[in-house]
């Protein structure tokens, strides 16, 4: 299950991880190796098996439409890398 470098670059882009060419190549090798090992899953006939997303068997866990206290604004912004006017500041939003 050899991945191509282009596939690895695409996945890194989806995950928004900036990786160096050397890191990408190493990632390609390691992921290929791991996925090779995972091919054993393809041996099992799962056609009639429902997927398990959760193991609690719970359904319909909901809350009433009631207000609870919000954070104070200073708390909300306490860990902000950059803030301005009570808001979180980021650089201009465009793709380079």
């Amino acid at each position: 299950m050899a991945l191509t470098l282009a596939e690895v670059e695409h996945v890194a882009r989806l995950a928004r991880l900036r990786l160096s060419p050397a890191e990408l190549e190493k990632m390609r090798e390691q992921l290929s190796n791991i996925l090779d090992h995972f091919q054993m899953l393809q041996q099992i006939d799962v056609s009639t098996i429902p997927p398990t997303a959760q193991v609690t068997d719970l359904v319909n866990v909901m809350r009433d439409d009631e207000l609870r206290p919000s954070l104070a604004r200073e708390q909300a912004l306490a860990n902000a890398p950059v803030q301005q006017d009570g808001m979180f500041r980021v650089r201009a939003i465009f793709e380079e």
Partner: protein
Amino acid sequence: MAALHELTLVQAHEALTRGDVTSVELTQALLARIAAVDSRVQAFLTVDADGALEQARAADLQRARGPSSALLGIPLGIKDVISTSGVRTTCGSNMLATYVPVYDATVIARLKQAGAVLLGKLNCDEFAMGSSTEHSAYQQTRNPWNLERVPGGSSGGSAAAVAAGEAPATLGTDTGGSIRQPAALCGITGLKPTYGRVSRYGLVAFASSLDQIGPMARTAHDCAMVLQVIAGDDPQDATCTGHPVPEYVAALTGDVRGLRIGVPREFFVAGMQPEVEAAIRHAIDVLRDQGAIVQEISLPHTQYALPVYYLIAPAEASANLARYDGVRYGLREPGESYFDELERTRGAGFGAEVRRRIMLGTYALSAGYYDAYYKRAQQVRTLIRRDYLEAFEQVDVIAAPTTPTVAFKIGAHSDDPLAMYLEDVCTLPLNLAGLPGLVVPCGFAEGLPIGLQLIGRPFDEQTLLRTGDAYQRVTDWHTRMPALV
């Protein structure tokens, strides 16, 4: 009497109750122990001495006022993936080097409510991803039994701290074995509760359908006392509701007569260290001698658990770790635009293992691969879970090894992720099935501890604790402490 840092939680509780010692004295003794040994063990990322002493003073006042809870004045350590209001919570990651939560996890709120004393935050693999604590961005926690060996992971700091006498009990988290494997490698007792037994609110998510917080301590009895406080429904965790909490300590009868114990043949794999297998089989014999009925069972899909886990957990992680974007908290690497900063921040803030799992998970969920990887993994997860539920129609507890070997040398797997993943082969099926697992020390090889893993029915922690406690009544592995030289 033993030195204060050597007391079990039960002994510390009794000493406090009798008035032999105050919480302040106990806390000071543990802070002194941390000061003495942690430069070698490196279990703690943050020691909150001032906070702990203040809580200890409050606990002593509370005790003077009247009846108290079992954890009142007991010092505990917390894995650094659990949110503690006002105390830095790094998750072992550069991404959160300066992050100070503004809220307490539900388990922290409950421990505070019970009057426990929080000593500080414990090292772990970055975002709990790893089996050796080598993936912490900060320091290498060492195995107190042999400082050249790993303590296991990801809750390596939580295990090493207990083994080194830096805390009578700690909280760890377990997504694929992260409580049980380090407990086994450090020679302590660790409980991974049933998924949904303990609230995850405030536990920084790794893999949401697998994560669970649990106690790590010297004995099953100690674990029962901590579990009693942290277990139970939480309106802020939709996956933690509907199961009343039994009296765990009351369940510790010491009696395992008639208990049906299953031994799964698939867990005794090729490549297993012979001394480990011997110790596990001997421990099972001890339980048989105590009156348990032992039979071999089969869990046929065990071999698939590893790939299933390493698809599902990274897939969930890839989404859970998307929030680290440098906008509201955490690291922000300077760049030209929002997206440039986003990619630089995530490239620089996450370590190699976290990046690898994000990549693996993103790939497994991406268009064209979802059915072949993620969905198929979920389907096989169903088969694995069925194996266990069917086994529990014949037996009450499953007994198995925790790890194939004793603690390995630091750096042994550092360039082979798959070899590291294989460390979890005996522990991660439980997370996939949502079951509780208790690890108790059961021997040594090469001077390093071995742990017996006991697996229970969903929400039947009491039977596990009763079995582990019964075993510890007739063995002394759990009483041994490393010389730390």
